[in-house]
């Protein structure tokens, strides 16, 4: 008898746990007439808290809250190199209440590397928020002072260059892969969990080089711990006018950089599922642009060494297509593969 009671109690506990878990799902419904937004808007960030993308996302959510008339809530959904957040956004529905922060690598590279439940075509980009330029770095006391030094030394001594990056298919990985593929040098790629760990590995002498954004790396340059060899852009950047482009470096070494017209900078976009109603999309696009133009946001972007250059939708589409083609070529030629 008591045993039966105990079994019932146990079953009850299990049932309660299941009910509670099931009750956690969120309600989603489409809005009919335009009184958007009626409730806070979720911004899904595809990475864990901390780091460049997360910092940008939080800053833009903060600024957007002032313009949208409702707050924008940053929610981190890390996993699958960003793809989990994209799938969650699509699942949440095209009502405009779920917006995701994304980048060209998440949108275009991940679907090429593995079987994701989305492609870039499933999204409509609201606005380009900031651009995070990519540079090639080596250790501060490295004998290489230029792209030419690196290429010539590696070729002459038949060196295998150890390249660090914070994840297969990241913008950093794509940039450095493009570099060594174009230079036809032998490399070993050593992946780490974050930019911080990768930089630590270069400074500690465990790997030879890596591609990073200035937000993570510039303090190490001022302290002499890291050295910049070049920028992965068609033209030089304002804040490092003396840093040559990678293509310039290749030219010095007598090679034509086949991606010389490609901008490898990481663009951060806000996007919604493609079926989002037009009026909601336009409203969001207008307000997000206003938020990006907000002085407080501009100050934060500047502190992070990121570039703000708002583009029109067709320009954004062209930029995404451009980098998609370049990434596709790099992946096809190096045989980078997930599953």
């Amino acid at each position, binding site marked *: 008898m008591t045993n039966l009671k105990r079994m019932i109690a146990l079953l009850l506990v299990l049932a309660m746990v299941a009910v509670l*878990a099931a009750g956690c799902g969120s309600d989603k419904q489409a809005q009919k007439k335009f009184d958007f937004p009626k409730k806070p808007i979720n911004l899904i960030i595809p990475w864990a808290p901390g780091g460049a993308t997360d910092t940008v996302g939080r800053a833009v959510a903060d600024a957007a809250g002032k313009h949208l008339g409702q707050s924008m809530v940053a929610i981190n959904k890390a996993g699958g190199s960003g793809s989990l957040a994209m799938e969650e956004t699509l699942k949440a529905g095209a009502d405009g209440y779920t917006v995701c922060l994304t980048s060209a690598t998440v949108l275009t590279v991940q679907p090429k590397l593995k079987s*994701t439940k989305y492609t870039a075509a499933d999204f409509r980009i609201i606005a380009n928020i900031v651009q995070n330029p990519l540079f090639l770095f080596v250790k501060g006391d490295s004998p290489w002072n230029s792209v030419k030094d690196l290429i010539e030394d590696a070729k002459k001594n038949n060196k295998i260059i150890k390249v660090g990056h914070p994840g297969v298919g990241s913008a950093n990985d794509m940039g450095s892969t493009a570099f060594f593929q174009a230079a036809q040098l032998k490399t070993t790629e050593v992946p780490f969990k974050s930019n911080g760990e990768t930089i630590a590995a270069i400074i500690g002498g465990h790997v030879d080089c890596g591609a990073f954004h200035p937000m993570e790396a510039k303090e190490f340059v001022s302290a002499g711990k890291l050295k910049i060899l070049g920028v992965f852009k068609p033209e030089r950047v304002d804040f490092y006018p003396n840093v040559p482009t990678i293509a310039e470096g290749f030219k010095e070494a007598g090679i034509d950089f086949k991606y010389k017209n490609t901008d490898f900078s990481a663009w951060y976009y806000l996007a919604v599922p493609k079926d989002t109603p037009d009026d909601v999309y336009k409203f969001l696009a207008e307000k997000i642009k206003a938020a990006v133009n907000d002085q407080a946001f501009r100050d934060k972007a500047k*502190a992070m060494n990121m570039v703000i250059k708002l583009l029109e939708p067709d320009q954004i589409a062209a930029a995404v297509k451009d980098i998609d083609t370049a990434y596709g070529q790099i992946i096809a030629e190096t045989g980078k593969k997930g599953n």
Partner: protein
Amino acid sequence: MEGTLGSLLQGFAAALSANNLIACFIGVVIGTITGVLPGIGPTGAIALLLPLTFGMDSGTGLILLAGIYYGSMYGGSTTSILVNVPGEAASMVTCLDGYQMAKKGRAGAALSVAAIGSWFAGTLGIVGLMLFAPPLAEMALSFGPPEYFALGVCMLLLLSNLTGASFSRALLMVLTGVLLSMMGTDIITGTDRFTFGITDLSSGVELLPAIMGLFGLAEVLAVALTPYAVSDAAKVKFRELYLKKEEMKRSVWPILRGSLIGFPMGLIPGPAAFLSSLLSYKAEKQFSKHPEEFGKGAIEGVAGPESANNAASSAAMIPLLALGLPFAPPTALLLGGLIIHGVNPGPLFITQHADMFWLVVASMYLGNVMLLVLNLPLVGVFASLTKVQPKVLMPVVVGIMIVGAYSLNNSLFDIWMMIIFGVVGFVMKYADYDPAPLVVGLVLGPAFEEGLRKTLLMSQGSLMNIATRPITATLFAISALIIAWVGYRWLQGVRRARRQPA
């Protein structure tokens, strides 16, 4: 030295301003709360409060956010001790003896020794941070993939039989943990392994839902089957709520050893606080004159690990402040916060932003004292929870665990993971399998696998660079000694058995 003292005094002068004191207090209170609530960790709390600090002075903001971080290490042990649910991963090992102490009516003693040990270790960690930050940070950089591999091997050998039950059972659990750790995206190739097409699984088996399930939920299920009577917990006189003299005497060395183990562990990337608490537990068991008490409510098993994880979290501030390199998720968030405030911490931070560095150091001293003062009176409140009827307490605990699991990644998936691990843990309990080695395998699996594969990548397939790197060679020498020692003991046992035929 005089310069240090002068700078520290200036730091204190700044930290004692009303604004900064309030910020520090808010930070440590929130930290304690996030520590107490299982699943809700410092990373989430810092992320949530970051926008609040935008309006503050950058130093004040950093004081608040740092307070949450080290404050959370204080609260983590509370639920481990009271209901066998670790508040943070680093408090898992506190369950082993803390919960047993609570069952014997010594919850108050366990909670107070955790608070005191945390305070001592935290403060010692700050002294280390203050005096040796730059050279220690440089040392941390010499830790590359081969060093991780060696550390993984050494730790697996040391920790595989943490609780000292049947060796084969523990080994089976460690290997199960290592196998589970292989799920998710392979960091080297980017390929998903064993995910069965479930995107949620691509980030692997999350540590905290696994621990909360294996320990907490399993315990709740066990209590549902055989509820304990509240009167089991003997009435405690106020005088005996805190530490008895004998308990105090037994805790002094564990606290000291725990601090010394935790501090260097905190410098390196990875689950430092978690590993340091396990290592401290193992050390205490080894040094103890009565190892048979471990797992049955030995106070050393609470004092050591809780000191170790706090020393580790103080030390984790060193790579952040001295180099600008965050090696733990909460410090990564602190870095992000600083950058938004326009302060870019890097190798020159201590020299260029000396005032801010000393302000933070001073605030950490103050914060740790506040935490002690805050936590000791709470001991009585928390300890009285053991008098709550299980049919009231347990559902509340389950509710909090579900919210906590959800809040980790805002994901229902983690709740299901916790429930699955809960049922598995429940079955293991009855089959007499210990969950701790499984978690050890889960944590050390990646360190071992990634370390080995990266080492081989770096050396083009040769294992020679293991011998040529000093730290790696030392760690492997230690591992060899452990194996030799275990082998020797085993031989001794065999000989003794032969001499005395049964």
